[in-house]
Every structure is written in structure tokens, then in C-alpha cells.
């Protein structure tokens, strides 16, 4: 099978810096134009039948990519199974709703606070539970997600089952207003956040925290023996992932202008986890691809509305059976040193030379 990931990575590695920058800029520009991609007759297949295509790009597509990238830090990078990720999304959304309706703070000011509260929740949950392993951690995080939802549902001072309506839209930037009529503007904001998270994860991955997470994921006992302070880095991973979820929650609340507890069910956690595993755990581009497909596809087939979840489930089973490591799995060895890379290049060149000689000789 053609290995797209390795081909892409090879191409990227062979390029020099200006080429890389130019390619990245073109791609980012293309992504920013996505809200208008459904406008032409030959691309009208992109348009979603019920909800407007531009709105779909913000929620669920953009939000799910953002959250899947956040969860990828926890599940993909450090190998901690978190089944309650929706809790951080909910904390972010409710921070935006409560502060947005009861104080005069605007959404841009609330955004870091939402991230902060989610992060705090991540640390508070992490300190006692990250000592647990594997599936115990999974069930405790699942419980945490449910606790947050039920607590919100039963607290009447924050709306109870009715939620909080009238969450303000963010104030405009550069004359671009944010409201329900302009989903494209929200999409651009979400893309900026996604780009920031991708940049952050790529930076972290090749530095000390990333190496510590990789060590913890591969074998925690060995990591401890090598002197990695595992608990500290696990809490870091947890709280950074939580902050991303919180940020997604704030933007979600201000775009939908309404938060209600029934949005934050266990199913959302499962769906985001599916995005991560389906796309390819630990690989940023895999996660982005997985989240895009799993969030866009159910909306695209909404015309068979009642059966679309069924099709979604079937797609999960079939894809996982055909590609068990996800669509774009991570490379087996992610970080080669410069010397190793040079050596690999030399070896490849030598192999080419040898093949040439060989074919020449056989003639």
C-alpha cells in the first residue's frame, strides 16, 4: 500500500526552509479560504444538506479538530486513556457563559480564564488520579466527565437543565464582527487556535516534555528508572490538554450563544477519542484528518438523517479493521538525530548506486 505519510514526510525533509515556509503559507491560505469552497458548482458536493456548510466548518469540524488535538496530547503523546475529555470542554463553555452574562468581560478576556479554569480542573483531577494506571484512569476520567455534567444539570443557579442563554458574541477584530450570520469569521478564529496548538505540540514534542511523554507512553517503569518525574509530566500533559479543551469550550459557547448540559454528554468524549484513534494516535496530521472526516461525514450524510449514526458506527468498525493504527499512524521512530538522518540518507544513496550498478551489470 502506498505510504502517504512517509512520502509526505520524505518530501518535507528534502525541502529547504524557504520551500517549507512557502508550502505552509499556501496551505494555511487554502485553509482560510475553506468557508468559500462550497460556492462553486463543481465543489457544491461539499455543501451539507441541512445546516449551512460554513456553520458546519465551525462546529463540529473546527471544534472537533481543536479538541482532538488537545486530547491527542493526553492519549496519543503520553498514552493516558482519558474518557472524560468533554468535562474540560464543558468547563470552558460554562466559564464563558457565566462570566459573559454576569460580568462585563468580553469573550477575548474570558478566553484565557476559561483555559485557566479548565487547566486548574485538569491539575486537580490529575494529582490524585494520575497515580492510577490504564483502565482505572479511564473509568475515573469517565466519572469526572459525568460528575461535571450532572452537577451542572442539578445546579439551578446556572440554569440547571435549561442551560444559560444569551452568551455574548466576541467583540469584533479588525472590523470583522462575530455573530451567527458570519460563521466564516468564527472559523478563522478556530483555525488560528488550531495552528497555535499544532505549533505548540510540535515544539513540545521535540523538547523535554515531549520526550518525557514518549518515555511514559512506551514504558512507565523504565521512564521512572531513567529519572523522568512521571507524575509531574503526566499532570502537565493532562492540564495542557485540558486548556485546549477549555479554549474550544469558550469559543463554542460564544458562537452558539447558548450552553446547555445535554451538549456535554459522554458521547462527545467518545467521539473525540474516536477522532484521535481513527486518524492515527500521536500523529498531528492523522488526528486532524480523523477529526475532519468524523465530524464532517455525519453532517454530509444528514439526508439519511435517522440512519447516519448507524453508518458512522459501521465506518468505525470497517476502518479500524482495515487500518488498525488509524488512517495516518505515527512513524515508528519519530526523532532521528541529525547524524542518524545523514547516515540514513547516505545509506539510501548507496543503495540506489548499488541498484544502478546491478542493473547495469545484468544488462
Amino acid at each position, binding site marked *: 500500500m502506498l505510504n502517504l505519510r512517509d512520502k509526505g514526510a520524505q518530501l518535507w525533509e528534502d525541502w529547504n526552509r524557504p520551500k517549507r515556509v512557502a508550502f505552509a503559507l499556501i496551505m494555511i491560505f487554502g485553509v482560510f479560504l475553506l468557508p468559500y469552497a462550497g460556492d462553486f458548482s463543481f465543489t457544491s458536493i461539499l455543501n451539507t444538506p441541512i445546516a449551512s456548510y460554513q456553520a458546519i466548518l465551525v462546529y463540529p469540524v473546527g471544534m472537533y479538530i481543536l479538541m482532538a488535538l488537545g486530547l491527542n496530547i493526553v492519549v496519543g503523546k503520553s498514552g493516558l486513556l482519558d474518557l472524560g475529555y468533554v468535562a474540560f470542554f464543558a468547563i470552558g463553555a460554562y466559564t464563558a457563559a457565566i462570566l459573559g452574562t454576569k460580568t462585563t468581560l468580553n469573550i477575548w478576556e474570558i478566553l484565557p480564564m476559561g483555559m485557566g479554569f479548565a487547566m486548574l480542573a485538569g491539575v486537580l483531577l490529575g494529582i490524585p488520579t494520575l497515580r*492510577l494506571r490504564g483502565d482505572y484512569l479511564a473509568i475515573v476520567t469517565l466519572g469526572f466527565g459525568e460528575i461535571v455534567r450532572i452537577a451542572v444539570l442539578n445546579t439551578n443557579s446556572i440554569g440547571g437543565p435549561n442551560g444559560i442563554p444569551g452568551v455574548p458574541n466576541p467583540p469584533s477584530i479588525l472590523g470583522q464582527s462575530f455573530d451567527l450570520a458570519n460563521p466564516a469569521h468564527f472559523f478563522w478564529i478556530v483555525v488560528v487556535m488550531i495552528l497555535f496548538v499544532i505549533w505548540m505540540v510540535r515544539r513540545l514534542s521535540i523538547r523535554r516534555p515531549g520526550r518525557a511523554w514518549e518515555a511514559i507512553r512506551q514504558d512507565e517503569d523504565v521512564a521512572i528508572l531513567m529519572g523522568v518525574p512521571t507524575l509531574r509530566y503526566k499532570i502537565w500533559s493532562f492540564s495542557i490538554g485540558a486548556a485546549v479543551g477549555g479554549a474550544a469550550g469558550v469559543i463554542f459557547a460564544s458562537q452558539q450563544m447558548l450552553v446547555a448540559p445535554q451538549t456535554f454528554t459522554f458521547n462527545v468524549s467518545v467521539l473525540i477519542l474516536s477522532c484521535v484513534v481513527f486518524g492515527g494516535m500521536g500523529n498531528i496530521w492523522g488526528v486532524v484528518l480523523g477529526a475532519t472526516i468524523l465530524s464532517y461525514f455525519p453532517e454530509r450524510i444528514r439526508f439519511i438523517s435517522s440512519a447516519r449514526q448507524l453508518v458512522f458506527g*459501521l465506518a468505525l468498525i470497517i476502518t479500524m*479493521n482495515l487500518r488498525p493504527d488509524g488512517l495516518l499512524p505515527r512513524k515508528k521512530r519519530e526523532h532521528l538525530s541529525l547524524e542518524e538522518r545523514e547516515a540514513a540518507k547516505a545509506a539510501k544513496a548507496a543503495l540506489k548506486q548499488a541498484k544502478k550498478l546491478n542493473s547495469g551489470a545484468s544488462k
Partner: protein
Amino acid sequence: MNFSVVQSQFFPLLINGLALGFIYVLISVGYTMVYGVLRLINFANSEIFMLGTFATIIVSRTVFKFDINSQPSHGMKLLIVLLCCLLAAMLTSGVVAVLVELVAYRRLRSRGTNRLGSLISAIGTSIVLSEGVRLLTHSLPESSPRVLSKFYIFTIHGVGLRIDQFLVIISGALFFFAVDRFVKLTRIGKAIRAVSMSEENSRLMGINLNRVISITFLVGGLVTGAAAFLYETVYETTVFNVGFNLGIAAFTAAVLGGIGNLRGAFYGGLTLGLAEEFFSAVLGTQWKEVTVFVVLVLVLLVRPNGLFGEAIQQSRV
């Protein structure tokens, strides 16, 4: 907070808690057995349970022509109806469990990939099953016709034991005892225990891994089906997502007792059933799930391997 209710309603709460607890015990047996051999949460177990409840209703409605107005039956006929419903539920759940293993786990396992891959395919299977039933039932709850008239066996000081609760407690204990003996005493039970100890070594000893895993799913499914039948005799209603909350609670029970350990499922299920009844009496039913999870977190903090878990994995405190 209403503590006086615990005093005044102690025995009714105790009986309700035991009945719920035994249903949890049987469902968590399904989780804990699969976890024992595969080290995986069987996410489709809640749907296996759900299909069992529907099988019970379908048999009592179509085969025995019970409907919402018909009188509960007595004597020999009652026994036959109950046994047939029980068998139907067990067979349905057992067969579905084996199919789930074939579809969601086998191919992925043979390719030796990461655990989360099969977790997602199990989630996919669970979505397909529950959505399929949702489409067939148009998302409506189905009520089960009353086959067993609910009389009190005896009453002491105004505290009664209802026949259906009695049935659940007795047959729950019997089923658990049977599974426990099966795993402890039979040859295939020994193979199951060997696989859960070490997959590699048991394969070296000539154990047919696929067969053992299939049988584990079958036994887990049969017991889950029995739980579904008992659930229907007490609560008499079902819906396409009935398994969701029960499944989470039963899995919590399995973890509470120490997952992978049958006896743990027993104590965990009973603890959880009783805790749910008493906490919801004191705090109000809307906090039921929260208190359960809080109890779980507290227990895991003190005993990271569950109440009765063996210290196989070293805890890290």
C-alpha cells in the same frame, strides 16, 4: 440531606439495593471476564444487555401472546414463560457477544495492534447495535407485559419482600455461583484463568486462544442476558439506550471490586447497588450517579487496585 429516611426506610432500601446490586453483579461479570482475558473494556456489553431486554419482551409478547392488558399467569404456565424468556434473553445476548468478538476484536487482535484500536471498533459495534434498535423502535421505550404478579411474599412490621425482588436476589446469587464454579472447576474455566494470567504462556501450553476468548464472551453474554431478563421482571421497561447507564454503573462496579476478578465483581456490584439506593435516598435521586463516582474515586485513592483486586500491577503512590 435527609438522613431520617435511612432510619425509617432502612429495610426497603436494603432490599431495593440488593436487587439492583445483583443485576449489577451479573452485568459486571460480563465486563470483568472479558477484561480478564483481553485486558480490554468491552464497550458493547451495554448493548448486549439491551438486546437481552428486548429478547425478553419479544418472547413474552409474540410467543406467549401477553399484552399490556393481559392478566399475570400462575402455576406451571408462569414457570414455562419465565424460563423461556430467560433462555431467549441469555441466548440472544450470548450469540451477540460472540458475534461482537468476531467483528470487533478478532481481526484486530490477530494483527497484534494497539489496544485502543479494538476499543474504537468495539465502540463502533456498540453504536451500530444501539442505533439499529433505535431505528427499529423509533426511539420509543417499550414496556414489558406483566407476566409475574407482584405480590409480597411476607411482610414484617410493614416491610415486605416482593416476589420479583426475591427472584432477582436468589437467581442472581445462583448465576454468580454457577459462573464462579464454572471458572474455578471446569477444564475450559481453567483455560480462561490461564489466558488471563498470561496470554503468551497459555498459548505455549497448547491452549486454543481464539476458542477460549470466544467462550469467555459467550459466558459473559449469557450472564448479561440473565441480568437483562431479571431487570425486565423488576423494572418492566426498556429503550434502545437502556444499557448505557447500567453499563457504566456495572463497569464501575467491576473496577470497584478489582477488575478481572470475579469475586470482585460480586462485592463491587452489591456495594454499588446498596450505595446507589442509600445515597439517592439521602441526597435525592438526581445525585445518584455522582455519588457513585465519588465513592469510586475515593476507593481507588486508598486501594488503587479496587477493593478486592490482586496487587498484580504495582500501585504507585
